[in-house]
């Protein structure tokens, strides 16, 4: 434990917050101003020397245009007079910060100079909890991280466990997983449309978004038993087969949601106020997005066609047709348009899934991994033993490490599991897209108006349960 107490005591109260300029290092200031620096090598030593006039100097910085061609322009906005700026605090209790996000901003009048997101208010130690739960129980834990797309969390955990087990699934299980995760993408994006509408003052959009989402959640309840936190996708397959008549239910959802996306077009897409508020606001470039490891609709809004479903297919995404949507300007409107059209693309995928859904098992018939059917327990001694062992000891997973990533509605959702050969993960790490995407907020906000901060934060679509885990 050498060094622990020393460093713990040096993190004094308030170190996570946005401090006055005088108390921060040049590197930290640049970070908060949204400079995405890729000048590696000697740059770390050269920066302080180049800034002889302090952070306010306008000298060209070495490393600014690095050998890899990444450029930034920290001079693109006025820094504001020293002593006349103020640091304000938005959140963590704020009606439009999507949970307990706290943004600290330095303002010159209404212009944002620096931003720092302060997170951790919803931290519940889920990675630590994951080490204490067996693989059988693990999906009940991860499903609570990104509570707007719980099935995607279960999916990535299950895929990672199956990767360690070296297991292949029956086709029907794969396609059911695909159906559910696409429906979940629809419900998650609808929720985003709702809250984004509310953040921009369109209260009707909030009601509409929730209304449509409720239809999808109704189907989830019918299939999994719960509206949220389903624990439906488990290592080895899914918990239950789809209910009778699921095709009609899903078809009804598709028809309704598709028709209503047209209404959203009428309500928002062409509306002058909405466009004024979103176009050209919260811009991020492709280089910045790549540098900051930003994924999902934000990366695609900059014009990079990167969607793991297409570029590194998992499940059976290589057997369905869909388009990857990209934007041009990387602004709030692009992100809105991408999410709206991703709902349509997801519905396209869902319709193909209905057509192609193969018959067969919805989980592997390996009694070491999945429990026996309830009826078998009454008549078979082995089934009873398997059931008992399954839920008391779980199953052992061969030692090794695996990283698996899927495209969640928010971006690359990764799971890194280290197994020591026991029934519990030795280490379970979740790469939450919201957590990483949060780094784009200072870049998007810098030089903009404080009134747009809410809209821009909303367009990042952070789910604090996943940011803090």
């Amino acid at each position, binding site marked *: 434990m050498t060094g622990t107490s020393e*460093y713990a005591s040096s993190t004094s109260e308030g170190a996570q917050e946005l401090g006055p300029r005088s108390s921060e290092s040049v590197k930290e200031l*640049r970070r908060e101003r949204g400079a995405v620096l*890729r000048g590696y*090598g000697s740059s770390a030593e050269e920066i302080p020397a180049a800034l002889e006039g302090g952070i306010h100097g306008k000298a060209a910085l070495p490393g600014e245009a690095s050998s890899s061609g990444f450029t930034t322009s920290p001079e693109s906005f006025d820094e504001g007079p020293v002593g006349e700026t103020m640091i304000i605090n938005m959140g963590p209790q704020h009606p439009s910060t999507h949970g307990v996000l706290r943004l600290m901003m330095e303002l010159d009048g209404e212009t944002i100079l620096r931003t720092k997101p302060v997170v*951790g208010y919803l931290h519940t130690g889920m*990675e630590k909890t994951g080490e204490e739960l067996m693989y059988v129980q693990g999906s009940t834990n991860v499903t609570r991280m990104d509570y707007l797309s719980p099935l995607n969390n279960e999916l990535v955990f299950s895929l990672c466990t199956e990767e360690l087990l070296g297991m292949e699934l029956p086709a029907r299980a794969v396609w059911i997983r695909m159906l559910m995760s696409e429906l979940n993408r629809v419900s998650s994006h609808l929720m985003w449309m709702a809250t984004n509408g509310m953040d921009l003052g369109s209260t009707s959009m909030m009601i509409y978004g929730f209304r449509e989402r409720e239809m999808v959640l109704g189907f989830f309840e019918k299939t999994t038993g719960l509206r949220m936190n389903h624990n439906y996708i488990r290592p080895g397959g899914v918990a239950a087969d789809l209910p009778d008549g699921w095709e009609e239910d899903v078809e009804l959802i598709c028809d309704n949601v598709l028709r209503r996306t047209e209404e959203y077009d009428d309500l928002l897409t062409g509306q002058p106020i909405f466009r004024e508020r979103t176009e050209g606001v919260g811009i991020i470039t492709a280089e910045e997005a790549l540098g900051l490891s930003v994924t999902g609709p934000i990366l695609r809004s900059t014009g990079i066609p990167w969607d793991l479903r297409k570029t590194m297919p998992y499940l059976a995404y290589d057997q369905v047709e869909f388009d990857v949507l990209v934007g041009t300007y990387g602004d709030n409107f692009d992100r809105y348009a991408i999410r709206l059209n991703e709902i349509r693309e997801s519905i396209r995928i869902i319709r193909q899934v209905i057509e192609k859904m193969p018959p067969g098992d919805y989980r592997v018939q390996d009694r070491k991994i999945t429990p026996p059917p309830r009826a078998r327990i009454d008549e078979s001694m082995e089934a009873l033993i398997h059931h008992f062992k399954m839920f008391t000891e779980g199953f052992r997973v061969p030692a090794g490490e695996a*990283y698996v990533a899927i495209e969640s509605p928010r971006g690359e959702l990764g799971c890194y599991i280290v197994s020591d050969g026991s029934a519990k993960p030795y280490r379970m790490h979740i790469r939450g897209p919201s957590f990483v995407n949060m780094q784009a907020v200072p870049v998007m906000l810098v030089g903009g108006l404080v009134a747009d901060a809410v809209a821009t934060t909303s367009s990042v679509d952070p789910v604090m349960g996943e940011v803090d885990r």
Partner: protein
Amino acid sequence: MVMDMDMAGGTETTAYTESNASAETAERGSLDAVLHGLRDIPQLPARRRQPVVLFPQRERYFDVVSELLDAGCEMLADLCVVDYLLNPHRNLPEQVVPERFEVVVNLLFLGLGERFRVRVQVPESDPTIDSIYDIYPGSEAMEREAFDMFGIVFNGHPDMTRILMPDDWEGHPLRKDYGVGRVPVQFREALGPR
């Protein structure tokens, strides 16, 4: 196959390499260029859907990651730490000396649709490592999380503070010797009813 056969340590790994070497060469030929300059770094080959894993020394970690960026790994997908205190035996190449902590970096090569993994051993006695913030600015939050949870200090990081736990928290919760049940009062300033 790019990696030297004798470099891949462990019987299990070697067997895999031999039986699949020819199939792998055809399939992963485009990776040769990327890995060519990193021949001297101990490696484990790709298996199933898991990528090539590089095991640089702590001193070479920054340079290796720089080279991977130059080669075209545009994105840092993930950075995390594993505490191997209770699980010291793991499959490593022969040259790599296992240490308590391991920094795991997952890189994404967008052009090829490939991933790379870099695993660096960090000793318990000196839990520090270079920050790759200057190469991948996206590592900022991830390194802060790693510091917060494991107490690994990243040299050169702009803002090495806790990110998820409160500022005055003591200890690093994801370490294996961090007792789960012994957490004291969380917010000391919170007063009682009187």
